[in-house]
């Protein structure tokens, strides 16, 4: 048991949206007794330099993660299945920045 767990502090995952129009990105985790304190601490730890416009905190226990042992079946690149990659389209010149 860590010191934080002994104090009844749960682990929270922190997600910050850098600006409007972007999605929330995972930035790290912290310990806090409840959601309110977790939000405040996330503000202090992760958004002091103007990094965000919105914060989510999620109990770490609520995150279901993929099994590292299942890496191959999950993540083997499907390079041979080239129909999965949209490479056969001629891009109109107007969208060259895509």
């Amino acid at each position, binding site marked *: 048991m860590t010191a934080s767990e002994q104090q009844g502090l749960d682990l929270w995952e922190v997600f910050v949206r850098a600006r409007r129009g972007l999605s929330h990105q995972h930035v790290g985790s912290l*310990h806090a007794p409840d959601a309110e304190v977790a939000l405040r601490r996330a503000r202090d730890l992760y958004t002091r330099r103007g990094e965000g416009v919105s914060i989510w905190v999620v109990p770490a226990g609520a995150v279901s993660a993929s099994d590292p042992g299942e890496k191959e079946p999950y993540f083997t690149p499907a390079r041979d299945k080239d129909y999965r990659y949209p490479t056969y389209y001629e891009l109109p010149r107007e969208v060259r920045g895509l």
Partner: protein
Amino acid sequence: MSSVRALTALARTLKPLDAYVLGLGDDALVSSHRLSEWLTRAPDLEEEVALANVALDQLGQARFLLGYAGRSSGLTEDELAYQRTDREYRNCLLVELPNGDFAHTILRLLFFSAYQRQLYTTLSESTDGELAGFAKKACVEVDYHYEYAASWTLRLGDGTEESHDRAVAALAELWPYTAELFAGDDLVTALAAEGLVPDPERIQGSWMEQVTSILAEATLGTAPSGTWRPGGGRNGVHTEALSYLLAEMQSVHRAHPGASW
């Protein structure tokens, strides 16, 4: 003797508004230093960062205020911070008291940030444009400090038996010192009449309302009664705690005058 001479010299040098602003700057600087003493001693890492953030905000306020106070006398913020003795500091006694336990620190921050909130809100309408601009920006910071302290006050007061008892003890010890925040003098009265600075009596009402409603919600009861209301900080008469604080804060500068890095 030499410190008394220096105080007299400083009092002679500073214009009334500068002398007033020096007091506000000293409040922010000393409070910031006390909060920074929690580094490596806070209940947990996250709380340490939160306290340090508040300390840094206050340090930023102190830098502006000391810079403003000394400018027309040719004194820099560093000279004011590092070369004055305790008798030349004009902060209120509340901010210099030792940290005590976490409840003491939180209740002190509650009282002080609620005061700064009222102060800066009114100061942001000052006829001095530069002070008004500063106060407007600082309001956002102290709003957060107040929210932080208020939410912890609720948790401590309405938490466990021990946290409640500690908060009650902190309230009893600190409350008498809050009177000094609103103790006006001739200097303040004259400046307030010109619309340069807040009238202490005017901000005391809203401060009292705000603080007592948090105390009640935190099940800490009503504000303690009692007639002992110490003061003197604005005239340079401090508790011994300030001397030790300054000795530590100024030690590097005194050992290496003029050093920079």
